[in-house]
């Protein structure tokens, strides 16, 4: 459990276009020993997670991380944008989510790592065969487990906002806000990587919440600088006042706008170790009616973030995550879980059904729950 360490990254003034606000993150000292570049797939992919589990999704691109062990700068290896002019969607087979392609090079599927972490949450199903669970739940667990997300191109206004965004010198990351709700965070090690990977934000996944906010939001206000001119008598005063005002925005941003991401604690799991760096994915605490982000990150030996990519879960996804964590926390015992949640067993059963996990419960148990919840009038 823990948060993540964004030291070395500072916030710069945001740029607004319609309902989308992009907040640049600038690194004073770029990381030279780890570099990222994108491989373009733009295809449906089948990913072998392990020898029993496979995973099917639209995969627009993969990232390749290159690192060095002796502190010499690494080079971003041949970034290419290759168009596939074919009329049908190619199908690609990926072995493993993260796979070493060379001695110092790792290919991983951005966002899918995090997404798979979420999908595989308590994927095995009930560990103790309580009588309420169906045979299917016992044998196959939650399989097949499905979640939906939208590509950036479908998010209203995001494409234009990214197109007209002016990249800061030294910029290594961006926070994407839609209707002033934090939709995604993206951090890379080096400014050149950011410049190359900025367009991939449009191909990334965004949750249903972000999609709807973008569709229905009105333009968000820009935070305009306001100078207090009462004490200004010289140009130097004016400059000092202007500098002071520029510091107001990062404080406000970190405390008010990004706190949902930065102050939360996460369950971080290591996926791969590459030299001094560690590739990990993290899951949130699934707090209901609050911001919950899943994501993946690469940290250096001291825990500072070199790469970060997050995905904001929509309310339904949070509810599902919450339900599964609660069930697992009580050994999948329905009555105990219901007591912990402060509801009756029947209510919990119906809640499991409405979360899309109805197939986990035995049909007759479910029918009993339904019957007990029916009011006398409706009979």
């Amino acid at each position: 459990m823990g948060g993540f360490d964004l030291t070395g990254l500072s916030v710069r003034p945001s740029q607004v276009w319609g309902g989308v606000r992009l907040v640049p993150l600038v690194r004073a000292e770029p990381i030279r020993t780890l570099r990222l570049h994108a491989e373009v797939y733009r295809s449906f992919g089948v990913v072998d997670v392990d020898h029993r589990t496979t995973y099917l999704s639209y995969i627009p691109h993969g990232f390749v991380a290159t690192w060095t062990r002796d502190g010499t700068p690494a080079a971003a290896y041949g970034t290419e944008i290759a168009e596939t002019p074919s009329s049908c969607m190619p199908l690609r087979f990926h072995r493993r989510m993260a796979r070493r392609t060379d001695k110092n090079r790792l290919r991983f599927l951005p966002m899918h790592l995090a997404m798979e972490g979420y999908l595989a949450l308590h994927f095995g199903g009930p560990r103790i065969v309580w009588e309420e669970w169906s045979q299917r739940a016992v044998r196959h667990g939650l399989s097949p487990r499905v979640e939906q997300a939208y590509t950036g191109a479908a998010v209203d206004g995001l494409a234009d906002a990214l197109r007209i965004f002016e990249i800061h010198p030294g910029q290594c990351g961006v926070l994407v806000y839609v209707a002033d709700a934090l939709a995604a965070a993206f951090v890379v090690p080096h400014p050149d990587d950011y410049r190359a990977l900025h367009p991939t934000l449009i191909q990334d996944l965004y949750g249903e919440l972000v999609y709807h906010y973008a569709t229905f939001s009105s333009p968000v206000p820009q935070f305009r600088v306001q100078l207090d001119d009462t004490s200004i008598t010289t140009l130097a005063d004016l400059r000092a006042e202007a500098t002071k005002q520029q510091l107001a925005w990062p404080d406000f941003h970190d405390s008010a706008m990004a706190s949902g991401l930065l102050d939360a604690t996460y369950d971080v799991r290591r996926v791969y170790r590459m030299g001094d760096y560690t590739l990990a994915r993290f899951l949130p605490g699934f707090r209901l009616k609050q911001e919950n982000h899943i994501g993946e990150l690469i940290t250096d030996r001291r825990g500072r973030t070199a790469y970060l990519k997050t995905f904001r879960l929509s309310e339904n996804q949070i509810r599902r995550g919450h339900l599964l964590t609660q069930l697992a926390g009580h050994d999948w015992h329905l009555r105990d879980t219901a007591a912990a949640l402060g509801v009756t067993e029947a209510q919990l059963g119906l809640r499991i059904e409405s979360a899309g996990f109805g197939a986990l419960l035995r049909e007759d148990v479910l029918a009993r729950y339904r019957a007990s919840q029916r009011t006398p009038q409706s009979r």
Partner: protein
Amino acid sequence: MDRVTAEDMLMFVNAAITSSGQREFHSAAQHQRLSLDFLHEYMIGNYRDLYAAALALDINDHNATLIAYRLLATSGDTDLEQRRLEGRLIGKRLRLVAPQRVYGLFRRLRRSRVNNRRTRAIIRDWLASRPDPAFDAVKYRTTLKQAVRHAHLTPAGEELGPFLFAGRTRYDTPILESWRRAHYEHAAIYDLPYTVAEGFAAKHKIDRATFLERIAPRMTRVERLRLQESASRNDVEVAADLSAMPLTRLASYVLSLPLSVRAQRRDELTGALRAAASRTSGRWGRVVAVLDDSFSASGSGQKRRRPLAVALACHYLFEALADRYVPLWTSGRTDALMTYPFGVTPLGERILDALEHRPDRLVIVSDGWDNAPDGLAAEVLRVWRARLDPRHEVGIVHLNPEYDADTFDVKRLGHVPTVGVRDAEDVPALVEFARFTEGRTGLAELRAHFDDRIARFLEG
């Protein structure tokens, strides 16, 4: 009410200078055109006299033809005296507009069936003023034919009528004869204008390199500039004469070259830019310019690097006009010739740097999207005017090359006078005009200015 009229008029002038109905960095072509059409409709509905007077100002060709079209299409809405003035203004203006645009206007008039007596007279007078009718008949054959037919005219000379409408086996006018022969003889193609010859070359399947090499003497100045690169790919050299090129076009050309080429040809390009700038007269004292070379200066696919080209042209112009000149690019780079659109727009900081020089004149050339941080430039200028320079000792002008379709105006920086700019050559006149946009001058003064401009325009 007068105040509103003055503001509307200034808004329209800014729009008519900058917008060309093409895609801009921040908005699509459709968006620009819709916004501009609305503005024209609004102006002609409310202030027809001022709308017509805009023809006497330095507005761009696109808007000049739009105004002419609207005035001709709604002749019935006004009295005789105003119609007469409009007629003179349109007639005069169309002579300054590029001929293909005027033919485009005639085609549009024909398509929307505008055929009043005044329209016919304007077409007649404009065609009569063309220096070489036979050349026009070859280069703009179809549109000329339509215009002649639409205005019920008899083409000048004996041969043009048959050339356009009937066809003959022999012409005495050399260019008409070449056109006739070009249908079957290769050599005759090279006596024709480039655009016409290109069609014949395709018809005869002439090798591109041979064609370019032989047609080069017949190309116009702009065609030569445009085809230089593609000709050199065919190992043909099309020499463009940079010395006679207008300043902004030259700046656009320089920005189209890769940095390595600019470095190689540094002396030649700088010389040409300086020579073009020195053609504008005036003396300005100490000048500091804040020039925007942020990413948004890259313009759009249709207006490539236009905002940056204007800034670059202004840089050389101020260098020529000023006694002492300090350029401040927003990116902090200092080599003007090697500039390219890059990064954010910290206008506020650059304006602070500029004010430290205590210039006589501060000129800001920017699209006004101040984003690092947003609104700092406007605040700095406001405080400067309110607290540090209440007597306006430093003349500040903001020149904006991009039309903002949402606000029907160019984007402003606080209360500083803001004018739209299309060509850097017009800047001295625009800076004079900028005093009206500060919001302190009344309508009477503005009308007097327009009347003066109209009188000078119709005389000169």
